[in-house]
């Protein structure tokens, strides 16, 4: 899976799964725009790590829920590298609460970043990708977007929305050789899951046939496959990477 000369934008790439996706695509030879919203120092670390290993990358600030910021980001990538082959919509936030207690702001914040953000970024890269007659878009959904999850009505609704958006974008853009797929991670070890109690962890593991939490690498490898030429006959799919939790 060589990606020399390919240009990728990874949103929310300063930490967690996005960071690993950015590092992995760079390792395969892609030039990577490392998008972040607030964590500039962390994004610069990712860039430094890529450059140190002989890759090419730069950090680009943009709140994905802001259309002007998103357009500026894509423009910056085009000015620098002249094309955009790969978009990984990874940026996401959580504002968990029970439905009855969920504030409107919590709902809006998650929908705006996790769903509208995917729409805005996809829209912004569609033009250059149509002209190129080539594009690979991967949306990071979540297994809870398929199964539902108590306490995450906003997050689940956004992720289920992303899966529907993936299918529609796939149908609209297929004739221009742009594929759009989604990856639905299960429980992945990140800063977020590190904070869970032992009891909660144990309960989670009981639901996972492969009996371990996933690593960001597990997601990055599947993303790399989906943006490779090997996956050129796949579009509109949602790949579960969850240790077999939801089948």
């Amino acid at each position, binding site marked *: 899976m060589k990606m020399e000369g390919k240009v990728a934008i990874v949103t929310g790439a300063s930490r967690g799964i996005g960071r690993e996706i950015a590092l992995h695509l760079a390792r395969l030879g892609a030039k990577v725009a490392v998008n972040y919203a607030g964590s500039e120092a962390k994004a610069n670390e990712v860039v430094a790590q890529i450059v140190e290993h002989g890759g090419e990358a730069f950090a680009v600030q943009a709140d994905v829920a802001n259309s002007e910021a998103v357009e500026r980001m894509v423009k910056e990538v085009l000015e620098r590298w002249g094309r955009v082959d790969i978009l990984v919509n990874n940026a996401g936030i959580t504002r968990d609460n029970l439905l009855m207690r969920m504030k409107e702001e919590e709902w809006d914040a998650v929908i705006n970043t996790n769903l509208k953000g995917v729409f805005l970024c996809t829209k912004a890269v569609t*033009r250059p990708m*149509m*002209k190129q007659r080539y594009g690979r878009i991967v949306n990071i959904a979540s297994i809870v977007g398929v199964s539902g999850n108590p306490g995450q009505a906003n997050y689940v609704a956004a992720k289920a929305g992303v899966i529907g958006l993936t299918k529609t974008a796939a149908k*609209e853009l297929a*004739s*221009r050789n742009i594929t759009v797929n989604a990856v639905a991670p299960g429980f992945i070890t990140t800063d977020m899951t590190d904070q869970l109690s032992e009891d909660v962890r144990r309960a989670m593991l009981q639901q996972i046939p492969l009996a371990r939490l996933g690593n960001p690498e597990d997601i990055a490898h599947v993303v790399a496959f989906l943006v490779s030429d090997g996956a050129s006959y796949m579009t509109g799919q949602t790949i579960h990477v969850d240790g077999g939790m939801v089948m």
Partner: protein
Amino acid sequence: MADVLERVTKIIVDRLGVEESQVTLESSFKEDLGADSLDVVELVMELEDEFDMEISDEEAEKIVTVGDAVNYIKSRLS
């Protein structure tokens, strides 16, 4: 600078694979020239490049016929 209609016609012929004789001011992109919605979006993108202008989504939606495109471009160039 070639006539606006000539330049628009050339792009339409290249993009949609139609005969030049089919392209008149009255021809509708979708009804007469066999374009689908995505083709029209792409045509507008190419017109933006050809005439070095930005056509907003609102304006683009009003472009139904070749004449609409030509008139819009002329109004912007003058």
